[in-house]
Structure formats: structure tokens, C-alpha cells
């Protein structure tokens, strides 16, 4: 009798273990929902839409803040900054005449996405032209 209980217990624990393994297996296999997101786009489309709807300084400032927030939060979460975000931020700085501030962001875009090189080089050369003009 005693032994029977013992066996039952063993079977029970074996079954529990089996159940756990199966559950974990399922979670690993079927868990793309639980995966880390590819990018953190934050409030990008909302602040850009607001900027289009009412193109004023306030909306531009908000969109700039959104871009910076995407960059910072992506770093915190260990995610790659979404394509074009560094570049768009740099572009706003250039339009504000802050070429020096803009340059590192252009370089970050190129480092993160080497395929952007032709495009970034083109922006950089324009930047140099305006610098010479100043």
C-alpha cells in the first residue's frame, strides 16, 4: 500500500514534469506574440500627423521630441532605432540651422543602416555646402 502511494507520487511528479516540459515547449514554439518587438516607433505617426494637420512650431517641437524619445527608448530596450529616425531628426536640426548638432545623427543612421550610405552622403555634402556658404 505504502509502496503503491510512493509509485503514484512518482508517477504524479513525472506527469507534472512532463506537463511542464510540454507547456514550456509550446510556449517556446508558439510564442512569437511574446517576442521582443522589432522596433519601438513610439508616437511617431501621431505626432507626424498632428504636424501635417497643424504645421506650426508647437507641433514641430512635439514631433522632434517624439523622434528623440524613440531614439532613447530604443537604446533602453536594446532595440535597433527604426530606419530613418536618426536621419529625420538630423534633417529637422539642419532646417533649424544646427548643422553641427545634426552631423552625429546622420552618422548614426549610416552606421546603423549601411545601405543608407548613398543617401546620407548626399545629405552630408549639402550640409558642407551650406557651411561653406555661411
Amino acid at each position, binding site marked *: 500500500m505504502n509502496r503503491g502511494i510512493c509509485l503514484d507520487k512518482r508517477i504524479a511528479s513525472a506527469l507534472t514534469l512532463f506537463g511542464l516540459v510540454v507547456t514550456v515547449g509550446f510556449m517556446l514554439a508558439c510564442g512569437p506574440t511574446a517576442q521582443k518587438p*522589432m*522596433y519601438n*516607433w513610439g508616437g*511617431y*505617426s501621431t505626432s*507626424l*500627423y498632428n504636424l*501635417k*494637420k497643424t504645421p506650426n512650431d508647437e507641433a514641430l517641437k512635439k514631433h522632434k521630441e517624439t523622434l528623440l524619445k524613440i531614439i532613447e527608448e530604443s537604446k533602453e530596450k536594446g532595440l*535597433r532605432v*527604426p*530606419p*530613418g*529616425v536618426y*536621419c*529625420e531628426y538630423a*534633417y529637422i536640426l539642419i532646417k533649424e540651422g544646427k548643422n553641427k548638432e545634426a552631423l552625429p545623427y546622420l552618422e548614426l543612421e549610416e552606421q546603423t*543602416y549601411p*545601405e*543608407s*550610405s*548613398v*543617401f546620407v552622403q*548626399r*545629405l552630408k555634402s549639402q550640409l558642407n555646402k551650406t557651411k561653406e556658404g555661411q
Partner: protein
Amino acid sequence: MSKGIRINKQIATTLTLLGLIVTVGFMLACGPKLTTKKESFPNIYDEKPLSILVLPPINMTTAADAKEYYATTIAEPVSLAGYYIYPIEVTTDILKAEGLYDTELLVNLPPQKFKQHFGADAVMYIKILKWDTAYFVLGGSVTVSVDFSLKSTTTGKVLWAYDGTMKIDTTGSDYGVGGWAGMAIKLMDTAVKTAVTDYVPVAKKANIITVSSMPFGKYHQLFDKDRDEKVILKDKPEEKGK
């Protein structure tokens, strides 16, 4: 008597089986035709583009603001499909500066030009087909319909093409107020809801529907592993090409 029942049972089973076969047959014949991504878009698997230049959308609707508003929704879904997408805000400004914001000029430009100027592997043409609000007596809806076509800047071939439509009902909820009073409230509510409903969330859903058929790009972990994923068959990209 007993035999009669038995025969009836047999007939019933046969009929049921026949009905099943017919139903399944109909489903296969009349349902949406499915193919694989590889079968539908072989060119994209051959060329494996990484960087995509999205051109200013081509507005086929009468809504003048659709072009600008729609453009704010496209970077996210294309990037999440695994592609490098050039910042639309910046590229649009550059194109404008070169006098290329106008739709017809852009469509007629050979795709190869965009390789030289931007280094893009592929160029995306987007048509906004519908950007509508509809009012009915007791309801309303917002519809956004888009058509995408991705072309290679090396070969000029269509790599992927698809379209998607999203319609969202803006009819007000039931107030439980009966008769004409209830109807009046409902009418007012529908008008207000339809007016304030932004198109952007509807456009985003239309994008998701459309981009879900796109083979994944190099930044996606399923890159080149989605050849056998099923998509609903549409016109062949070659036939659709401009």
C-alpha cells in the same frame, strides 16, 4: 418496416456525404484562391531588395489632404516587414526640391534613377484608391483603399504588388431610447462620429492587410523563410505593372 428504416438511413448517410463533398467542392472553387508568397512574387525572392524608397503617394481620390495624411502611416508597416525605408519626410522634400512631387512625373521616371540618387534597391509606388466617408440614414462608414507596387531599381521588374481595403462602421451605439427620440439621437451621433473619425487609423489597418502579403525583408527573422506562406491570389504583378 425495419428494413425500410435501414434503407432510409443509408440514403441519409449517402446524401449527407454527397452534401459534404459538394460543400467542400464549392469552398475550393468559389473561395478566395490561395497561393504561396514564392509563387505570387518570385522576383522579390530572386533580387532580395533591402532598401526601399517610398514615393509620395498617388492620390486617385478627390480628398486633397489624403496624400499628406496617408504618407504618415507607411514607414512603420514597411519597416516591420524587415526593410530599410528611407525617411519619407526627408526624401519627399528632396524630390519636391527637384520638382518631382507631381505624381505623373514620378511614375514616368525610370526606377533606375532612384538607384543613382538614393542608393535604393527598390521603389514603392502607392495609389490611394479610396478615402471616403459615407453617410446613410442611420449610419456611416469610413473607407480607405490602397494599392502598392514595388519595383526593382536594377531590373525595373515588379517585385511585389498588392492592394487592401479597410472599411470601418461609424454607426452610433444603441441608446435604448425607443421611437423617434431614439432615432434622432442616433442620427446626430452618427453624423458626429463620422465627422471626427480620423482616416489615419483606417489607413493603418488597410496598410497592415496589404503589407501582410509582402515577403519579409532582411531585418526580419523570417527573411527568406516565408516562401510557402499562403496569400490570397490577386492579379499577377506583371499584369498590373504600369
